[in-house]
């Protein structure tokens, strides 16, 4: 088989492989999004409002990650605080 391939020359990867890889990522992402509780977006905004009362942070400073395993749900809230120099006086 290897010899045959050699004579045929290196075949480029078929576009179907690319399609499958793209779809697998996309569908996994869509499904994760679908299973997120609907309150997440509002909660993210509220958290951001509270933080901004004390620190000047960007809109994207708070990321909320929701994961669901078989037996538990994990909510991960990640807040990026600015460098000390940028802090409010």
């Amino acid at each position: 088989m290897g010899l045959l391939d050699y004579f045929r020359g290196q075949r480029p990867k078929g576009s179907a492989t690319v399609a499958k890889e793209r779809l697998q990522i996309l569908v996994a992402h869509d499904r994760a999004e679908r299973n997120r509780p609907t309150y997440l977006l509002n909660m993210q905004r509220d958290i951001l409002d509270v933080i901004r009362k004390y620190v000047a942070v960007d809109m994207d400073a708070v990321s909320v990650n929701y994961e669901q395993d078989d037996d538990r749900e994990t909510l991960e809230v990640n807040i990026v605080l600015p460098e000390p120099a940028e802090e409010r006086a």
Partner: protein
Amino acid sequence: MARIIVITSGKGGVGKTTTAAAFSMGLALRGHKTAVIDFDVGLRNLDLIMGCERRVVYDFVNVINGEANLNQALIRDKRCDQLYVLPASQTRDKDALTKEGVGAVIEELSKTFDFVVCDSPAGIEHGAMMAMYYADDAIVVTNPEVSSVRDSDRMLGILSSKSQRAETNAEPIREFLLLTRYSPERVAHGEMLSVEDVQEILSMDLLGVVPESQAVLNASNAGTPVVLDKISPAGQAYGDMVARYLGEDVPHRFLAVEKKGFFSRLLKRG
């Protein structure tokens, strides 16, 4: 009690109406009293594919609004007396299909029919939501192509959250994959997603694979459900798919590149 089946896909142009026509005709040919409803209000086409467009007097919306009774609106198929078509309305009022109205029509059909097939419009707007709301089973028509596969997955999400069965915590809708416009040649060349690829991504039960076939256009030109074309691979694939839906164990066909016989190869060269 009839079994309610929605033919859905999300994406347009993948073969929903072709499938609804072929599937309902296939069920009826096997002796099951079947009604097929066109939910594409404003863009009705099922009547054309079924070849009964000149016999439409009353439609689905007339029945919902009480302007006609169900028996006046149902069109009995001339080729098979077990099959009835309920055409969509050409009204532009998108909200003409109310949840209560659709429910009442399906309930009345349920009393005398074995199967009610709901041909969904494309998209995830009102008509599509109404088509799937009362379903017991869903046939998700998918092309081996990225946007169709993605839309089918979105449709699965909607079926499992927005249907009556989902809202009442009843047993979930049974979901079946029907892969259409399949080209084994292009799959062999690595240019098209294979059945296995699509099944792996969507993780659904495979009801059938319909090969890309000129017979489908010929059938729609003539207003004859393609399942009646017993010679074409597409017609046979639809026949198989109906048998499988009814619980028969039928092996999948037309998945591999057709091997050319010695003589046909000889003739082609000549």
